[in-house]
Protein backbone atom coordinates (compact mmCIF):
# COMPACT_ATOMS: atom_id res chain seq x y z
CA UNK A 1 0.00 0.00 0.00
CA UNK A 2 2.85 2.39 0.77
CA UNK A 3 3.83 2.38 -2.91
CA UNK A 4 0.35 3.65 -3.73
CA UNK A 5 0.54 6.56 -1.29
CA UNK A 6 4.07 7.34 -2.43
CA UNK A 7 2.93 7.47 -6.04
CA UNK A 8 -0.11 9.64 -5.30
CA UNK A 9 1.91 12.18 -3.34
CA UNK A 10 4.75 12.45 -5.88
CA UNK A 11 4.67 15.29 -8.40
CA UNK A 12 3.87 12.91 -11.25
CA UNK A 13 1.27 11.08 -9.17
CA UNK A 14 -0.59 14.31 -8.48
CA UNK A 15 -0.61 14.98 -12.19
CA UNK A 16 -2.01 11.50 -12.89
CA UNK A 17 -4.77 12.29 -10.37
CA UNK A 18 -5.53 15.59 -12.16
CA UNK A 19 -5.59 13.87 -15.52
CA UNK A 20 -7.80 10.93 -14.50
CA UNK A 21 -10.26 13.01 -12.46
CA UNK A 22 -10.24 15.65 -15.23
CA UNK A 23 -11.11 12.95 -17.78
CA UNK A 24 -13.94 11.69 -15.57
CA UNK A 25 -15.31 15.21 -15.09
CA UNK A 26 -15.15 15.61 -18.86
CA UNK A 27 -17.15 12.39 -19.18
CA UNK A 28 -19.72 13.75 -16.76
CA UNK A 29 -19.96 16.98 -18.78
CA UNK A 30 -20.63 14.97 -21.92
CA UNK A 31 -23.45 12.99 -20.26
CA UNK A 32 -24.86 16.14 -18.66
CA UNK A 33 -24.86 17.97 -22.00
CA UNK A 34 -26.44 15.00 -23.77
CA UNK A 35 -29.16 14.75 -21.11
CA UNK A 36 -29.90 18.44 -21.15
CA UNK A 37 -30.15 18.48 -24.92
CA UNK A 38 -33.56 16.82 -24.39
CA UNK A 39 -34.63 20.46 -23.91
CA UNK A 40 -34.34 20.85 -27.69
CA UNK A 41 -37.30 18.47 -28.02
CA UNK A 42 -39.45 20.62 -25.74
CA UNK A 43 -40.86 20.65 -22.23
CA UNK A 44 -42.29 17.16 -22.14
CA UNK A 45 -39.10 15.56 -23.45
CA UNK A 46 -37.07 17.41 -20.81
CA UNK A 47 -39.48 16.46 -18.02
CA UNK A 48 -39.52 12.84 -19.07
CA UNK A 49 -35.70 12.79 -19.12
CA UNK A 50 -35.73 14.20 -15.57
CA UNK A 51 -38.30 11.63 -14.51
CA UNK A 52 -36.28 8.75 -15.96
CA UNK A 53 -33.24 10.02 -14.15
CA UNK A 54 -35.10 10.17 -10.85
CA UNK A 55 -36.57 6.73 -11.33
CA UNK A 56 -33.03 5.41 -10.78
CA UNK A 57 -33.79 5.90 -7.07
CA UNK A 58 -30.97 4.95 -4.70
CA UNK A 59 -28.47 4.98 -7.56
CA UNK A 60 -28.71 8.76 -7.64
CA UNK A 61 -27.17 9.54 -4.24
CA UNK A 62 -24.47 6.94 -4.98
CA UNK A 63 -23.66 8.63 -8.28
CA UNK A 64 -23.70 12.01 -6.56
CA UNK A 65 -21.22 10.90 -3.94
CA UNK A 66 -18.90 9.43 -6.55
CA UNK A 67 -19.07 12.61 -8.62
CA UNK A 68 -18.48 14.78 -5.57
CA UNK A 69 -15.42 12.70 -4.59
CA UNK A 70 -13.94 12.95 -8.08
CA UNK A 71 -14.58 16.67 -8.07
CA UNK A 72 -13.07 17.24 -4.63
CA UNK A 73 -10.03 15.15 -5.54
CA UNK A 74 -9.51 17.31 -8.63
CA UNK A 75 -9.97 20.57 -6.71
CA UNK A 76 -7.82 19.66 -3.69
CA UNK A 77 -5.01 18.23 -5.82
CA UNK A 78 -5.24 21.28 -8.11
CA UNK A 79 -4.90 23.67 -5.18
CA UNK A 80 -1.97 21.66 -3.80
CA UNK A 81 -0.17 21.82 -7.16
CA UNK A 82 -0.86 25.53 -7.45
CA UNK A 83 0.58 26.30 -4.01
CA UNK A 84 3.63 24.08 -4.52
CA UNK A 85 4.31 25.71 -7.88
CA UNK A 86 4.16 29.18 -6.36
CA UNK A 87 6.72 28.07 -3.79
CA UNK A 88 9.05 26.53 -6.36
CA UNK A 89 9.56 29.98 -7.92
CA UNK A 90 9.63 32.06 -4.75
CA UNK A 91 11.46 34.97 -6.41
CA UNK A 92 9.78 36.27 -9.55
CA UNK A 93 11.59 37.55 -12.63
CA UNK A 94 11.78 41.31 -13.09
CA UNK A 95 11.16 40.74 -16.81
CA UNK A 96 9.46 37.63 -18.02
CA UNK A 97 8.37 36.83 -21.51
CA UNK A 98 6.62 33.69 -22.71
CA UNK A 99 8.93 31.67 -24.96
CA UNK A 100 6.10 30.37 -27.12
CA UNK A 101 4.72 27.37 -25.27
CA UNK A 102 2.05 28.82 -23.00
CA UNK A 103 -1.48 29.39 -24.20
CA UNK A 104 -4.35 31.37 -22.70
CA UNK A 105 -5.74 28.09 -21.51
CA UNK A 106 -2.56 26.74 -19.94
CA UNK A 107 -1.57 29.89 -18.09
CA UNK A 108 -5.00 30.33 -16.50
CA UNK A 109 -5.67 26.75 -15.36
CA UNK A 110 -5.84 27.47 -11.60
CA UNK A 111 -7.94 30.59 -12.12
CA UNK A 112 -10.39 29.08 -14.61
CA UNK A 113 -10.59 26.13 -12.22
CA UNK A 114 -11.54 28.42 -9.33
CA UNK A 115 -14.08 30.22 -11.51
CA UNK A 116 -15.63 26.87 -12.51
CA UNK A 117 -15.89 25.99 -8.83
CA UNK A 118 -17.83 29.21 -8.13
CA UNK A 119 -19.96 28.65 -11.19
CA UNK A 120 -20.88 25.13 -10.15
CA UNK A 121 -21.82 26.33 -6.66
CA UNK A 122 -24.08 28.97 -8.18
CA UNK A 123 -25.58 26.43 -10.54
CA UNK A 124 -26.32 24.03 -7.67
CA UNK A 125 -27.98 26.81 -5.66
CA UNK A 126 -30.07 27.62 -8.74
CA UNK A 127 -31.35 24.16 -9.47
CA UNK A 128 -30.35 21.70 -6.73
CA UNK A 129 -30.36 23.16 -3.20
CA UNK A 130 -33.90 24.52 -3.55
CA UNK A 131 -37.41 23.54 -2.56
CA UNK A 132 -38.38 21.04 -5.23
CA UNK A 133 -42.05 22.08 -5.41
CA UNK A 134 -41.94 23.20 -9.06
CA UNK A 135 -41.31 20.97 -12.07
CA UNK A 136 -37.62 21.22 -13.04
CA UNK A 137 -38.51 22.78 -16.40
CA UNK A 138 -40.07 25.76 -14.60
CA UNK A 139 -37.09 26.15 -12.28
CA UNK A 140 -34.65 26.15 -15.21
CA UNK A 141 -36.86 28.52 -17.13
CA UNK A 142 -37.15 30.93 -14.21
CA UNK A 143 -33.34 31.12 -13.91
CA UNK A 144 -32.35 31.29 -17.56
CA UNK A 145 -35.02 33.71 -18.75
CA UNK A 146 -33.23 36.43 -16.75
CA UNK A 147 -30.41 38.23 -18.62
CA UNK A 148 -28.49 38.51 -15.34
CA UNK A 149 -28.11 34.74 -15.26
CA UNK A 150 -27.53 34.53 -19.02
CA UNK A 151 -24.38 36.56 -18.49
CA UNK A 152 -23.18 34.46 -15.58
CA UNK A 153 -23.90 31.18 -17.33
CA UNK A 154 -22.27 32.31 -20.57
CA UNK A 155 -19.23 33.46 -18.60
CA UNK A 156 -19.15 30.08 -16.85
CA UNK A 157 -19.12 28.32 -20.23
CA UNK A 158 -16.28 30.55 -21.44
CA UNK A 159 -14.00 29.70 -18.53
CA UNK A 160 -14.94 26.03 -18.87
CA UNK A 161 -13.98 26.16 -22.55
CA UNK A 162 -10.67 27.75 -21.64
CA UNK A 163 -10.01 25.12 -18.95
CA UNK A 164 -10.64 22.17 -21.21
CA UNK A 165 -8.93 23.76 -24.20
CA UNK A 166 -5.68 23.08 -22.34
CA UNK A 167 -6.90 20.25 -20.12
CA UNK A 168 -7.91 17.88 -22.91
CA UNK A 169 -4.49 17.84 -24.58
CA UNK A 170 -2.70 18.07 -21.25
CA UNK A 171 -4.28 14.95 -19.82
CA UNK A 172 -2.95 12.86 -22.69
CA UNK A 173 0.54 14.27 -22.22
CA UNK A 174 0.32 13.57 -18.48
CA UNK A 175 -0.70 9.98 -19.10
CA UNK A 176 2.28 9.61 -21.42
CA UNK A 177 0.51 9.81 -24.78
CA UNK A 178 2.43 12.12 -27.10
CA UNK A 179 3.35 10.77 -30.52
CA UNK A 180 3.36 12.52 -33.89
CA UNK A 181 1.01 9.81 -35.12
CA UNK A 182 -1.73 10.68 -32.61
CA UNK A 183 -1.11 14.33 -31.79
CA UNK A 184 -3.28 15.76 -34.56
CA UNK A 185 -6.08 13.40 -33.60
CA UNK A 186 -5.84 14.51 -29.97
CA UNK A 187 -5.85 18.17 -30.95
CA UNK A 188 -8.87 17.82 -33.24
CA UNK A 189 -10.61 15.63 -30.67
CA UNK A 190 -10.07 18.36 -28.09
CA UNK A 191 -11.62 21.03 -30.31
CA UNK A 192 -14.57 18.80 -31.15
CA UNK A 193 -15.16 17.81 -27.53
CA UNK A 194 -14.93 21.38 -26.21
CA UNK A 195 -16.94 22.78 -29.12
CA UNK A 196 -19.72 20.23 -28.83
CA UNK A 197 -20.24 20.58 -25.09
CA UNK A 198 -20.01 24.35 -24.99
CA UNK A 199 -22.26 24.69 -28.05
CA UNK A 200 -25.01 22.59 -26.45
CA UNK A 201 -24.95 24.51 -23.17
CA UNK A 202 -24.74 27.92 -24.84
CA UNK A 203 -27.58 27.02 -27.17
CA UNK A 204 -29.80 26.16 -24.22
CA UNK A 205 -28.82 29.35 -22.38
CA UNK A 206 -29.68 31.61 -25.32
CA UNK A 207 -32.74 29.62 -26.35
CA UNK A 208 -34.28 30.22 -22.94
CA UNK A 209 -33.34 33.91 -22.98
CA UNK A 210 -34.69 34.74 -26.40
CA UNK A 211 -37.67 32.44 -26.31
CA UNK A 212 -38.96 32.82 -22.73
CA UNK A 213 -42.06 30.67 -23.26
CA UNK A 214 -40.07 27.78 -24.74
CA UNK A 215 -40.16 25.50 -21.69
CA UNK A 216 -43.65 26.51 -20.54
Amino acid sequence: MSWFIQTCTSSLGKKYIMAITGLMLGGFLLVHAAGNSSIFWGRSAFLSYAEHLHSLGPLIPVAEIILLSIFLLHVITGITLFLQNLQARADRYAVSKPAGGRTWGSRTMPYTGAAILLFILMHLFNVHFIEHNLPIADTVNAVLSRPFYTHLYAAGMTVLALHISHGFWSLFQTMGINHPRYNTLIRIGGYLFTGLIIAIFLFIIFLLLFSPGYLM
Partner: protein
Amino acid sequence: MAAKKIAITVKVWRQTDQKVKGSLETYSLSDISTDMSFLEMLDVLNDQLTMEGKEPVAFDHDCREGICGTCGAVVDGVAHGPERETTLCQLHMRHFDNGQTICIEPFRAKAFPIIRDLIVDRSAFDRIIAAGGFVSVNAGSAQDGNNTLVAQHRAEQAMDAAACIGCGACVAACPNAAAMLFVSAKISQLALLPQGHAERKMRAQAMVTIMDNEGFGNCGNERECENVCPKGISIRNIARLNREYLRATLAANE
Protein backbone atom coordinates in the same frame (compact mmCIF):
# COMPACT_ATOMS: atom_id res chain seq x y z
CA MET B 1 28.21 40.71 -42.64
CA ALA B 2 30.72 43.19 -41.42
CA ALA B 3 30.83 43.85 -37.70
CA LYS B 4 29.21 47.00 -36.43
CA LYS B 5 29.68 48.75 -33.15
CA ILE B 6 26.65 49.26 -30.97
CA ALA B 7 26.02 51.06 -27.69
CA ILE B 8 23.74 49.30 -25.22
CA THR B 9 22.46 49.64 -21.69
CA VAL B 10 22.43 46.53 -19.53
CA LYS B 11 20.46 45.99 -16.36
CA VAL B 12 22.22 43.22 -14.47
CA TRP B 13 21.09 41.38 -11.36
CA ARG B 14 23.63 42.01 -8.59
CA GLN B 15 23.51 39.95 -5.42
CA THR B 16 26.42 39.35 -3.06
CA ASP B 17 25.30 36.01 -1.64
CA GLN B 18 22.35 33.72 -0.98
CA LYS B 19 21.07 35.65 2.02
CA VAL B 20 21.28 39.27 0.90
CA LYS B 21 18.53 40.52 -1.36
CA GLY B 22 19.75 41.52 -4.80
CA SER B 23 18.68 44.20 -7.24
CA LEU B 24 19.08 45.24 -10.86
CA GLU B 25 21.98 47.63 -11.56
CA THR B 26 22.19 49.65 -14.76
CA TYR B 27 25.42 50.00 -16.79
CA SER B 28 26.12 51.64 -20.15
CA LEU B 29 28.40 50.05 -22.73
CA SER B 30 29.61 51.65 -25.92
CA ASP B 31 31.63 50.14 -28.76
CA ILE B 32 30.24 46.63 -28.46
CA SER B 33 31.10 44.72 -31.63
CA THR B 34 28.15 42.85 -33.12
CA ASP B 35 30.54 39.94 -33.66
CA MET B 36 30.96 39.51 -29.93
CA SER B 37 29.18 36.77 -28.09
CA PHE B 38 26.95 37.69 -25.19
CA LEU B 39 29.56 36.48 -22.72
CA GLU B 40 32.26 38.55 -24.42
CA MET B 41 29.99 41.54 -23.96
CA LEU B 42 29.88 40.65 -20.23
CA ASP B 43 33.71 40.38 -20.29
CA VAL B 44 33.86 43.93 -21.64
CA LEU B 45 31.45 45.04 -18.92
CA ASN B 46 33.64 43.39 -16.29
CA ASP B 47 36.80 45.08 -17.65
CA GLN B 48 34.99 48.37 -17.43
CA LEU B 49 33.80 47.68 -13.86
CA THR B 50 37.28 46.58 -12.78
CA MET B 51 38.83 49.77 -14.20
CA GLU B 52 36.27 51.77 -12.26
CA GLY B 53 37.25 49.88 -9.11
CA LYS B 54 33.90 48.10 -8.90
CA GLU B 55 33.15 44.46 -8.35
CA PRO B 56 32.81 42.56 -11.68
CA VAL B 57 29.64 40.64 -12.47
CA ALA B 58 29.96 36.97 -11.53
CA PHE B 59 28.68 34.63 -14.24
CA ASP B 60 29.22 30.96 -15.03
CA HIS B 61 30.90 29.81 -18.23
CA ASP B 62 33.30 27.17 -19.41
CA CYS B 63 33.42 25.85 -22.98
CA ARG B 64 31.87 28.91 -24.64
CA GLU B 65 30.96 26.68 -27.55
CA GLY B 66 27.52 25.52 -26.51
CA ILE B 67 28.37 22.05 -25.30
CA CYS B 68 29.09 22.12 -21.57
CA GLY B 69 25.91 23.57 -20.09
CA THR B 70 27.68 25.88 -17.68
CA CYS B 71 26.52 29.25 -18.97
CA GLY B 72 23.03 30.65 -18.79
CA ALA B 73 21.02 33.66 -17.74
CA VAL B 74 17.58 35.03 -18.43
CA VAL B 75 17.90 37.77 -21.06
CA ASP B 76 14.90 40.06 -21.44
CA GLY B 77 12.68 37.43 -19.88
CA VAL B 78 13.87 34.46 -21.95
CA ALA B 79 16.35 31.84 -20.70
CA HIS B 80 19.51 31.87 -22.90
CA GLY B 81 18.13 34.93 -24.72
CA PRO B 82 16.13 35.49 -27.88
CA GLU B 83 17.77 33.00 -30.30
CA ARG B 84 16.18 29.55 -30.43
CA GLU B 85 18.28 26.46 -29.69
CA THR B 86 21.24 28.65 -28.73
CA THR B 87 23.13 28.76 -25.45
CA LEU B 88 24.00 32.13 -23.98
CA CYS B 89 27.66 31.70 -24.96
CA GLN B 90 26.65 31.13 -28.58
CA LEU B 91 24.32 34.10 -28.70
CA HIS B 92 25.81 37.00 -30.62
CA MET B 93 25.42 40.71 -30.09
CA ARG B 94 24.26 41.10 -33.68
CA HIS B 95 20.84 40.04 -32.46
CA PHE B 96 20.59 43.25 -30.44
CA ASP B 97 20.00 46.80 -31.62
CA ASN B 98 21.98 49.96 -31.10
CA GLY B 99 20.60 51.77 -28.06
CA GLN B 100 18.77 48.71 -26.73
CA THR B 101 18.34 48.12 -23.00
CA ILE B 102 18.92 44.48 -22.07
CA CYS B 103 17.80 42.97 -18.77
CA ILE B 104 19.98 40.11 -17.47
CA GLU B 105 18.79 38.00 -14.55
CA PRO B 106 19.93 34.68 -13.08
CA PHE B 107 17.92 31.46 -13.54
CA ARG B 108 15.33 31.66 -10.77
CA ALA B 109 14.06 28.62 -8.90
CA LYS B 110 13.90 27.63 -5.26
CA ALA B 111 15.93 24.55 -6.19
CA PHE B 112 18.64 26.75 -7.80
CA PRO B 113 19.73 29.14 -5.02
CA ILE B 114 21.68 32.18 -6.22
CA ILE B 115 25.34 32.02 -5.22
CA ARG B 116 26.33 35.42 -6.55
CA ASP B 117 25.02 37.77 -9.27
CA LEU B 118 24.18 35.50 -12.23
CA ILE B 119 25.64 32.30 -10.76
CA VAL B 120 23.17 29.78 -9.39
CA ASP B 121 23.77 26.48 -7.63
CA ARG B 122 22.53 23.73 -9.96
CA SER B 123 23.91 20.84 -7.93
CA ALA B 124 20.32 19.62 -7.48
CA PHE B 125 20.71 18.27 -11.05
CA ASP B 126 23.82 16.35 -10.01
CA ARG B 127 21.95 14.76 -7.11
CA ILE B 128 19.15 13.68 -9.46
CA ILE B 129 21.71 12.06 -11.78
CA ALA B 130 23.49 10.39 -8.84
CA ALA B 131 20.15 8.88 -7.78
CA GLY B 132 19.67 6.88 -10.98
CA GLY B 133 20.82 8.58 -14.16
CA PHE B 134 23.33 5.89 -14.98
CA VAL B 135 23.66 2.24 -15.99
CA SER B 136 25.64 -0.11 -13.80
CA VAL B 137 28.09 -2.02 -15.94
CA ASN B 138 29.62 -5.08 -14.37
CA ALA B 139 32.46 -5.26 -16.81
CA GLY B 140 33.56 -8.56 -18.26
CA SER B 141 34.86 -9.36 -21.69
CA ALA B 142 33.00 -7.39 -24.33
CA GLN B 143 30.38 -9.27 -26.32
CA ASP B 144 29.97 -8.88 -30.04
CA GLY B 145 28.33 -5.50 -30.75
CA ASN B 146 25.77 -7.01 -33.10
CA ASN B 147 24.32 -9.16 -30.32
CA THR B 148 22.36 -6.20 -29.04
CA LEU B 149 20.22 -4.83 -31.81
CA VAL B 150 18.88 -1.28 -31.61
CA ALA B 151 16.41 0.03 -34.18
CA GLN B 152 17.70 3.11 -35.96
CA HIS B 153 14.76 5.34 -34.95
CA ARG B 154 15.26 4.40 -31.29
CA ALA B 155 18.97 5.14 -31.49
CA GLU B 156 18.14 8.53 -33.01
CA GLN B 157 15.69 9.38 -30.25
CA ALA B 158 18.14 8.25 -27.58
CA MET B 159 20.80 10.48 -29.15
CA ASP B 160 18.38 13.41 -29.27
CA ALA B 161 17.66 12.97 -25.56
CA ALA B 162 21.37 12.60 -24.82
CA ALA B 163 21.99 16.04 -26.33
CA CYS B 164 20.82 17.62 -23.04
CA ILE B 165 23.74 19.55 -21.55
CA GLY B 166 22.12 20.01 -18.13
CA CYS B 167 22.11 23.80 -18.33
CA GLY B 168 18.90 24.26 -16.35
CA ALA B 169 17.22 26.67 -18.77
CA CYS B 170 14.14 24.45 -18.78
CA VAL B 171 13.74 25.00 -15.03
CA ALA B 172 14.38 28.72 -15.43
CA ALA B 173 11.73 29.04 -18.14
CA CYS B 174 9.09 26.82 -16.54
CA PRO B 175 6.36 28.92 -14.89
CA ASN B 176 6.40 26.30 -12.12
CA ALA B 177 10.20 25.87 -11.98
CA ALA B 178 9.76 22.17 -12.78
CA ALA B 179 12.73 20.04 -13.81
CA MET B 180 10.76 17.63 -15.96
CA LEU B 181 12.47 18.31 -19.30
CA PHE B 182 15.93 17.69 -17.87
CA VAL B 183 14.89 14.58 -15.93
CA SER B 184 12.92 13.23 -18.88
CA ALA B 185 15.91 13.64 -21.20
CA LYS B 186 18.14 11.78 -18.73
CA ILE B 187 15.53 9.02 -18.28
CA SER B 188 14.86 8.75 -22.02
CA GLN B 189 18.45 8.40 -23.19
CA LEU B 190 18.62 5.20 -21.14
CA ALA B 191 15.01 3.98 -21.39
CA LEU B 192 15.26 3.91 -25.18
CA LEU B 193 18.27 1.59 -25.24
CA PRO B 194 18.52 -2.04 -24.16
CA GLN B 195 21.37 -1.21 -21.77
CA GLY B 196 19.02 0.93 -19.73
CA HIS B 197 16.29 -1.64 -19.26
CA ALA B 198 17.66 -3.60 -16.33
CA GLU B 199 17.48 -0.67 -13.93
CA ARG B 200 14.51 1.04 -15.51
CA LYS B 201 12.11 0.81 -12.60
CA MET B 202 14.62 1.83 -9.94
CA ARG B 203 15.80 4.70 -12.12
CA ALA B 204 12.39 6.30 -12.70
CA GLN B 205 11.43 6.09 -9.03
CA ALA B 206 14.74 7.26 -7.61
CA MET B 207 15.16 10.20 -9.98
CA VAL B 208 11.58 11.44 -9.51
CA THR B 209 11.85 11.14 -5.73
CA ILE B 210 15.01 13.24 -5.62
CA MET B 211 13.55 15.71 -8.13
CA ASP B 212 10.57 16.24 -5.80
CA ASN B 213 12.73 16.48 -2.68
CA GLU B 214 14.94 19.14 -4.24
CA GLY B 215 11.98 21.51 -4.40
CA PHE B 216 11.33 21.73 -8.13
CA GLY B 217 7.72 22.48 -9.10
CA ASN B 218 5.16 20.26 -10.80
CA CYS B 219 4.87 20.07 -14.58
CA GLY B 220 1.85 21.97 -15.91
CA ASN B 221 2.44 21.00 -19.54
CA GLU B 222 3.00 24.66 -20.39
CA ARG B 223 5.68 23.79 -23.00
CA GLU B 224 7.88 26.77 -22.17
CA CYS B 225 10.84 24.44 -21.49
CA GLU B 226 11.13 22.97 -24.97
CA ASN B 227 10.96 26.47 -26.43
CA VAL B 228 14.07 27.67 -24.58
CA CYS B 229 16.07 24.44 -24.57
CA PRO B 230 19.34 25.11 -26.42
CA LYS B 231 19.43 21.47 -27.52
CA GLY B 232 15.84 21.27 -28.75
CA ILE B 233 14.83 18.55 -26.28
CA SER B 234 11.15 17.79 -26.95
CA ILE B 235 8.39 17.33 -24.40
CA ARG B 236 7.80 13.94 -25.98
CA ASN B 237 10.50 12.96 -23.52
CA ILE B 238 8.31 14.23 -20.67
CA ALA B 239 5.49 11.99 -21.91
CA ARG B 240 8.01 9.13 -21.88
CA LEU B 241 9.00 9.97 -18.29
CA ASN B 242 5.29 9.96 -17.38
CA ARG B 243 5.03 6.46 -18.87
CA GLU B 244 8.23 5.22 -17.27
CA TYR B 245 7.15 6.38 -13.82
CA LEU B 246 3.62 5.03 -14.21
CA ARG B 247 4.95 1.68 -15.25
CA ALA B 248 7.55 1.69 -12.49
CA THR B 249 4.94 2.28 -9.82
CA LEU B 250 2.29 -0.07 -11.21
CA ALA B 251 4.51 -3.03 -12.03
CA ALA B 252 5.46 -5.21 -9.06
CA ASN B 253 8.96 -6.53 -8.53
CA GLU B 254 9.26 -10.09 -9.74
